């Protein structure tokens, strides 16, 4: 197998952003985008572990048909907190707040984001929101599902809904401020000569993500505030008993929460574009198509929310339009998949850990996306609504897509972030564990859903047991795959090989500076003269 990691000759820079200052205060009051990225990295890992623990309990309960591990009420709270933590406190900030925060200024040759202090504020808002959600789950829990459908959430639920909603509301502002910072930074902070079509695709996808964060998040903010007010003061906006319309809540909620799916997946697509190009030693096939597909996904993403509501009182004609528009989103998504595949064609492909994750992403995202089309067909959707088919579909996109892309990016830029290499064979082993464990966990759920097993129940008829046991077994392998990077990445901080400035001989401005970079990123202005991804000019890696 060819490998392209170059044995580092460079030594670690004496002064970098990690060792510039050492006090706890210097971390908690930092305005350096790289340090804030590290703060985010630690905090989202914490919430990922909590969400993952909840998932473990879910899979253990579903090992047997009877509800023997926990009561139905406890189960409701466990899957709700799994959803809340994973979506609002892991997936939405995952790539933008960590890799995005670290890389957006570096990829465009800037010293920092446009508003460094707002960047820090956004991390604090995230932490406050996360603590509130955590508090809600410890004191009373929340049993509404992460979707908070009214009137259950606004009137009847006996659990701690208000505090959890407040947490999500505050975390939403963290997301808005991150989007605002990226948007302004990409518009105004690019290095001289770095025109729009010279930008890395990572930047394009983060630009599209920022627009979604800015225009979608406020709508869910006002919606959740109205639910809080309805619950505390007794407004009647979503309560049918008082003449309100519960379906209005679903419209407003999905107006954000469907674009939120693209907030989660678009940055992942940006990561994959970088990695596929680097490990194929080729510029991405159809650069401008991939870039505009990001914008098209962002635009169309705002027009498809009604496909979550085919079984409500929404008019059939509205349903037809939403169905059609949902099919349209498949076009830019497929453009990306085809272009990544074409990038590999006749490329000098090597299978380092990030590339393994990237291939995993392409395959699993394709399955997740195509099953989305099954659900976008109205007649099919009526059969599949609220079954495990839906659960499998969005886990293929969110875990098979987004989490794999996050791991791919984390491994790819780990040498840049820390200056150290992780043990390659362990990385590959973990990538295999994740891929095999993931498919074993979630593919049976497609079958379960098609057989009619409904989601969100703690007990099920015995005929579904075999597939559920398979799923729980897969989850165990998946957990090993997720736990391994936690250990070897931490290990590499002290004992990993020094990475050098550019261990993959990759293009992109972030590789022109030291690893880890200095506080202001570049000691001399980065060279922006080349077209994007000039891999044809880089030497072909040596066969070893």
């Amino acid at each position, binding site marked *: 197998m060819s490998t392209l990691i170059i044995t580092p000759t460079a030594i670690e820079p004496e002064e970098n952003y990690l060792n510039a200052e050492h006090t706890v205060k210097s971390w908690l009051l930092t305005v350096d985008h790289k340090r804030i990225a590290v703060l985010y990295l630690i905090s989202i890992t914490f919430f990922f572990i909590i969400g993952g623990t909840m998932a473990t309990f879910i899979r253990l309960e579903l090992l047997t048909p009877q509800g023997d591990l926990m009561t139905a009420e406890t189960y409701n709270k466990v899957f709700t907190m799994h959803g809340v933590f994973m979506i609002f406190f892991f997936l939405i900030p995952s790539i933008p707040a960590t890799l995005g925060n670290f890389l957006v200024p570096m990829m465009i040759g800037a010293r920092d984001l446009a508003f460094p202090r707002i960047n820090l504020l956004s991390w604090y808002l995230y932490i406050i929101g996360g603590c509130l959600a955590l508090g809600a789950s410890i004191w009373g829990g929340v049993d509404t599902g992460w979707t908070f459908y009214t009137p259950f959430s606004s009137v009847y639920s006996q659990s701690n809904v208000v505090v959890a909603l407040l947490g999500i509301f505050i975390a939403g502002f963290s997301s808005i401020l991150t989007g605002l910072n990226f948007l302004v930074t990409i*518009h105004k902070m690019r290095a001289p000569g770095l025109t729009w079509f010279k930008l890395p695709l990572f930047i394009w996808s983060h630009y599209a993500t920022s627009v979604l964060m*800015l225009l979608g998040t*406020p*709508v869910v903010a*006002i919606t959740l505030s109205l639910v809080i007010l309805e619950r505390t003061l*007794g407004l009647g*906006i979503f309560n049918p008993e008082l003449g309100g319309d519960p379906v209005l809540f679903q419209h407003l909620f999905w107006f954000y929460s469907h674009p939120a799916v693209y907030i989660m997946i678009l940055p992942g697509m940006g990561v994959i574009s970088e990695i596929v190009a680097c490990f194929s030693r080729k510029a991405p096939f159809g650069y401008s198509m991939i870039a505009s597909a990001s914008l098209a996904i962002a635009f169309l993403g705002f027009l498809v929310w009604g496909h979550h509501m085919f079984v409500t009182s929404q008019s059939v004609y509205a349903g037809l339009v939403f169905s059609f528009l949902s099919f349209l989103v498949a076009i830019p998504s497929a453009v990306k998949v085809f272009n990544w595949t074409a990038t590999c064609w006749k490329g000098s492909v090597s299978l380092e850990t990030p590339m393994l994750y990237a291939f995993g992403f392409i395959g699993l995202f394709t399955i997740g996306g195509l099953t989305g089309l099954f659900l976008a067909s109205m007649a099919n959707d009526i059969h599949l609504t609220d079954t495990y088919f839906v659960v499998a579909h969005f886990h293929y996109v969110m875990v098979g897509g987004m989490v794999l892309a996050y791991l791919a990016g984390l491994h790819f830029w780990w040498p840049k972030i820390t200056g150290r290499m992780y043990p390659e064979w362990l990385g590959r082993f973990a990538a295999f564990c994740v891929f095999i464990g993931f498919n074993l966990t979630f593919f049976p759920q497609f079958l379960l859903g098609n057989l009619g097993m409904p989601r969100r129940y703690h007990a099920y008829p015995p005929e579904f047991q075999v597939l559920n046991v398979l799923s729980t077994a897969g989850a165990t392998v998946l957990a090993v795959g997720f736990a391994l990077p936690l250990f070897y990445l931490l290990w590499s901080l002290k004992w990993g090989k020094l990475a050098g400035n550019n261990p993959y001989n990759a293009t992109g401005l972030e590789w022109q500076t030291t690893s880890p970079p200095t*506080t202001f*990123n570049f000691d*001399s202005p980065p060279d922006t003269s080349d077209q994007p991804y000039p891999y044809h000019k880089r030497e072909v890696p040596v066969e070893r």
Partner: protein
Amino acid sequence: MSANTPAIHGAPAHTAPTHSAPMHGHAPQADDGHAGEHPYGLAHQFDDVEQQKEAVTIGMWAFLATELMFFGGAIAGYVLYRNTYFHAFNKASGLENWFVGCINTCVLLVSSLTMAMAVFRAHQGDRKGIIKYLIVTMILGATFLGVKAYEYNHLFHERLVPGRNFDVPHHVINADGSIKAEAHAGDAGHGPPHFTPEERRPAMIFFSFYFALTGVHALHMIVGLGLLTWIIIRASKNEFRDGYSSPVEITGLYWHFVDIAWIFLYPLLYLIDRSGHVGH
């Protein structure tokens, strides 16, 4: 849109990111001994004053787009119920005091004018002018909030605050369909419209939106007053000079946005049935 106009990145002296650039965030240093090397008010992450000014302005406009969607979500809900419960909303809106709302509209419009004057003075670097106009703006903003408090208090006494005690003027109907008594007549004298039994619950939805929308708006006014206080303090330290006025400008943008939001809320909540030809 291209960010890289020669005007921004043209001067090579500023394009090279300097490792030793001082870190002082957005707050400009009070002492400014070497304007040639490091322009007054320039934060470390920017190359030059022009870039900083454009970034800050775009940032505020993007934030206002967010605000637009925030109010937009609630207004979309309002429009839905306005169509579903057309007559009830007409009558409920009739319980608002349009004249007091009109006074408040005028107060806010004048405050926008004084805000614009303050920005104009900031461009001139006129410290006293900035402070004078901002204080007038703050007085007008506080007046608006005072009038709003008066209205809320009045609605509270009229039992028009959503919740268990909410009630609107209506007839109590006997079993045979005749009118038995008038319940909760409201202010005697100006004869409020009577709500049919089906219209009583939708009336509460109207007032739910009334309090949600005006409440969120008032919250924005309070934030605005806080921002103005901050700007006044900075102006009193003479921080807005040598062409540095971005904080005043973007606070002005925010203030104008909050005014414009009210310009939409006033007709939606107070004026939907003032022609006398619709409803009833």
